[in-house]
């Protein structure tokens, strides 16, 4: 494995984004505006934004990064550049890590912007530590990227890729504890909810828990990221049947 090629791939993806200012704006403005809207809608219910805002941050990062990554990698699969790269000395892991790195940077910028706005302007008074919120947003962003990479293999067109979003994100949104606390779900559902990546992202934000509880949630997210990245790299075939 060559870190130079990982870096080159990361830089190439960032360059592609740079030539697409509208996408950058959507990546940064949409989550910020959504959290702002949420804060505003809860203005007459003191304390509610403090509980909901940080949790939604992870959900937004995961969703946005999932969409962006699945469409970008699908494009790479369909326009022939993936085949060309695989006829060159680029390891599959180098390509995958390049993607994770580039979109990881985007996730960091996105979460930093949203949490800064939340604390300074939207009046967030969360007991959690700001860096933990940023770490969760970063992990959630990487989760989105990793799953986007893996699931893009199942889509043949960008139209299909976009439709994986509701199929992948909405069930998790229902079960992650935002609608109904996970503990109050029917047993079978709770068992599923407990092992979903989005649940870990939401739990990791919950205030006033033990350090080992937080460590466990982060471990779950990192494990999902690694597994999805490995699954993603197995979907890249150097040789077709």
């Amino acid at each position, binding site marked *: 494995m060559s870190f130079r090629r990982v870096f080159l791939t990361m830089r190439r993806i960032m360059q592609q984004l740079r030539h697409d200012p509208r996408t950058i704006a959507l990546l940064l403005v949409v989550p910020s505006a959504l959290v702002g809207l949420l804060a505003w809608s809860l203005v007459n219910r003191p304390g509610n934004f403090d509980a909901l805002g940080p949790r939604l941050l992870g959900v937004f990062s995961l969703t946005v990064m999932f969409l962006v990554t699945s469409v970008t990698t699908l494009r790479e699969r369909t*326009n*022939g550049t993936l085949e*060309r790269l695989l*006829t*060159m*000395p680029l390891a599959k892991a180098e390509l995958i890590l390049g993607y994770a790195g580039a979109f990881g940077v985007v996730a960091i910028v996105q979460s930093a912007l949203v949490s800064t706005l939340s604390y300074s302007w939207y009046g967030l008074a969360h007991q959690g530590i700001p860096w933990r919120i940023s770490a969760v947003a970063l992990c959630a962003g990487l989760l989105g990227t990793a799953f986007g990479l893996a699931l893009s293999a199942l889509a043949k067109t960008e139209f299909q890729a976009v439709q994986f979003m509701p199929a992948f994100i909405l069930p998790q949104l229902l079960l992650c504890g935002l609608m109904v606390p996970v503990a109050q779900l029917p047993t079978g559902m709770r068992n599923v909810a407990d092992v979903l990546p989005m649940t870990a992202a939401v739990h990791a934000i919950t205030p006033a828990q033990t350090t080992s509880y937080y460590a466990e949630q982060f471990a779950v997210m990192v494990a999902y990221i690694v597994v999805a990245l490995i699954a993603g790299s197995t979907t890249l075939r150097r040789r*077709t*049947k």
Partner: protein
Amino acid sequence: MTALALEVSQLRVVRQHHEILKSLSFDVAPGELVGLLGPSGSGKSTLMRSLLGVQSITSGTALALGEKVGTPALRRRIGYMAQSSAIYLDLTVRENLAYFAGILGADNSQVEHTLDVVKLRAFAGRLVTSLSGGERARVSLAVALLGAPPLLILDEPTVGLDPVLRQDLWRTFAQLVAEGTTVLVSSHVMDEAARCGRLLLLREGHLLFDDAPAQLLTRTRSSGYDDAFVKLIESPS
């Protein structure tokens, strides 16, 4: 003894129960310019992809530059241009070349050199989306030329290009061959195929013809290449 550029023996490719290539055998010596012809669906692209190691081979053997196709060492020694342009539309021409050059381990002077070879220097800073089809094809060719690979596999590089541009590209191929590069190029424009030193003609996965272009005229008693092509394709097998 220098290794042959290509050594293909009884190559068969079966894809989804269809036999695409039926026991092909041929050799290509270093420095040859070989034209690969055939109607669409005859297996040209599959053959090219097999030689690159991205299409799995059902049986038979294929060696490129003396090594089994698909071996990692070959990945910087074969330049490939696919039918789709296979470049990033949302990058500039130079960014595209710089990225692929970096992956190949070729230095930056290679980027500048290939820009000159395909005459794209004036477009270097432009985004590929803003380029015409012909200009995109030249960017794709430039990527294939990075690192000066000894073997080039070009799948329909001139399709959809105007006659002036086609002329230019064929001059480029001739020059590369004069410098010792082996070029396998597919086309379905017969007149330009006649510029090759040798023609391979595929029909339904069989090799129908493997000889100098002039022999094609003699064998089919035709005066023009288009006519010869049609006669050969329609001849009973």
